[in-house]
């Protein structure tokens, strides 16, 4: 009896020790994990109209969501193979680090400490939306400048760069204020609308989105002053070059397609044109007829075609979710191709 027990103990301990050391350093790229799994896990907010939002039919929609779809189209070949994980601001980075999600496409501001190795240690894809933080007030309050917000209550989402920017700005101006912090943007909006705060602060795109959903948008004013740069970009965990490269070029492909005037409607036309006309070498490379741009990234050679087929180019995505005919109308402004005076530009696909 005793003997058997001791044997049992020994074998058990060996087993457990084995468990403990298994897989301590798999150096596989996350990109392979995604491909093998056949599903992309994409962290989104799920609560911001125009960016990622649960629609009436129970589907996520928005710019951030389309980015996820483009990624899935490129990595897996099917834009529907995405699991969306709605994440709150506090949990998004941990979710990324622990591998719960493959990439984050959730209104995340690209800044140094989030990017740096000693900071949050992420890697950012190109900026998909240039935003800046602003304030919204009620017109009847007659406030037109931030200075007039001295000693006021200001509604803000907790744990975001928004909160830090607010603090920096008011400290710079030497003004006191009381931050009323909520867990998510909807509560911030609710608090503001119900008059808990004189002003709410958030990225201007979100202010505009929120205002457009109000019953009388004209009663609210978004102050001109932008207190911060908020370049929003998808992110992945740092140190995984294959994944981050692939993500970077998926985004660039969206920009480049706009520059080239390739969209969901004419993609096959363009593809045929490229296939038949040997002289269009840059187009041929871009659409994967020639060269091996895809292979270099570990993606199918025609990944651009797959993306455009599924989501269209950047302009189409923007129109769909933030254009004049959408619920949330935000003028393109900086978020236009450099060809039209905006900030979006793609390096060459060479």
């Amino acid at each position, binding site marked *: 009896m005793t003997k058997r027990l001791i044997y049992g103990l020994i074998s058990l301990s060996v087993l457990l020790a084995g468990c403990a050391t298994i897989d301590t*350093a798999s150096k596989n790229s996350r990109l392979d994990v995604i491909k093998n799994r056949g599903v992309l896990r994409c962290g989104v907010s799920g609560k911001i109209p125009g960016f990622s939002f649960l629609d009436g039919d129970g589907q996520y929609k928005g710019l951030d969501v389309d980015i996820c779809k483009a990624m899935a189209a490129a990595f897996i070949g099917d834009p529907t193979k995405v699991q969306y994980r709605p994440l709150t601001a506090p949990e998004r980075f941990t979710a990324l680090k622990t591998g719960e999600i493959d990439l984050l496409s959730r209104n995340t501001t690209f800044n140094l400490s989030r990017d740096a190795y000693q900071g949050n*240690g992420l890697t950012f894809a190109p900026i998909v939306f240039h935003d800046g933080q602003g304030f919204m007030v009620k017109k009847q309050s007659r406030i037109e400048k931030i200075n007039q917000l001295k000693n006021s209550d200001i509604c803000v989402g907790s744990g975001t760069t928004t909160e830090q920017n607010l603090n920096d700005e008011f400290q710079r101006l030497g003004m006191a204020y009381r931050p009323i912090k909520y867990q998510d943007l909807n509560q911030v909006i609710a608090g503001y609308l119900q008059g808990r705060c004189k002003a709410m602060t958030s990225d201007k795109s979100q202010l505009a989105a929120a205002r457009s959903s109000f019953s009388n948008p004209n009663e609210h004013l978004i102050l001109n002053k932008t207190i911060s740069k908020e370049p929003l970009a998808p992110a992945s965990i740092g140190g995984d070059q294959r994944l981050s490269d692939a993500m970077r070029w998926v985004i660039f492909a969206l920009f480049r397609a706009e520059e080239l005037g390739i969209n969901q409607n004419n993609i096959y036309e363009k593809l045929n044109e490229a296939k038949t006309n040997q002289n269009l070498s840059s187009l041929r490379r871009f659409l994967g007829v020639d060269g091996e741009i895809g292979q270099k990234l570990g993606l199918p050679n025609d990944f651009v075609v797959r993306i455009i087929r599924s989501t269209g180019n950047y302009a189409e995505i923007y129109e769909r979710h933030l254009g004049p005919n959408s619920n949330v109308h935000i003028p393109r402004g900086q978020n236009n191709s450099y060809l039209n005076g905006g900030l979006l530009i793609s390096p060459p696909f060479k």
Partner: protein
Amino acid sequence: MRIPKSFLYQLIIAFIISCILGVLFNNLIVNLIRTGIGINFKWLMRPAGFALAETSLPYKPSDTYAWALFIGWINSLKVILFSLILATLLGIIAGTARSSSNLLVKSISSLYVALIRQIPLLLQLFFWYFVAFLSLPNTPLEPIGKLLSLSNQSLRIAGVNISVEFCALLIGLTIFTGASIAEVVRGGLNSVNRGQWESFRSLGLNERLGLIHIIIPQSLPAIIPGLTSQYLNLAKNSTLAIAVGYADIYAVSDTTITQTGRAIEGFIILLASFLVLNLLITGSMNILNKLVMRIK
């Protein structure tokens, strides 16, 4: 040599437990190295960089994370203490009302308990904050002159300003906990022998005097343990402050964790601060219990 069987069993179990813990710990270390999170507490001394709306002690954003967390803890303590007192009063009233001879009083208190205990606290908090308090007018109401003024930003009683976040949390916790305390009180009163009621009645004591001098003192030994666990629940439930934007310890830890990415350390601090809160509550209830026993 014969080893006692029970000793062997214990050895095995100790081994299994330590193995499980070991594996978990090993995984943690591996993951920490892999993701570069690491564990240290040096960041506690760095400036927090966020403001807090509710501060009982002087605080500015350039103060350290440690101080910000402490302010959050004090805020928790404040809301727990006040709702503890109010919930106890409410619970005693509602609990005794359920053995009232007045049918209306009795049914109102039964309705209160049956309604409140079957609806999630979080939902109730949302109601109190977003529906009840934020619907107050923007310009202060002053129903009884300057003494009390009410608006959707703050409540002002005799010159003391209280934020609506605090009020909503206080009322939500009080009403929710009050219903549970009412049940505890009712159970305590029922635990007193019927003969005691007849006995004081036949001596000519009226119901009020009888409750105060005869029934309640005897029901205390049955009430106090239940009360203690309700107080502990209250303390734990106060973390739902986060839903109504009140800066309690959980909310501050949450912000801290987001800003620093120090999830594990933040979690450890949160646990430690709750340990202290629990010790405070159980400690003072033990003292109370001893007092009651001595009186008895």
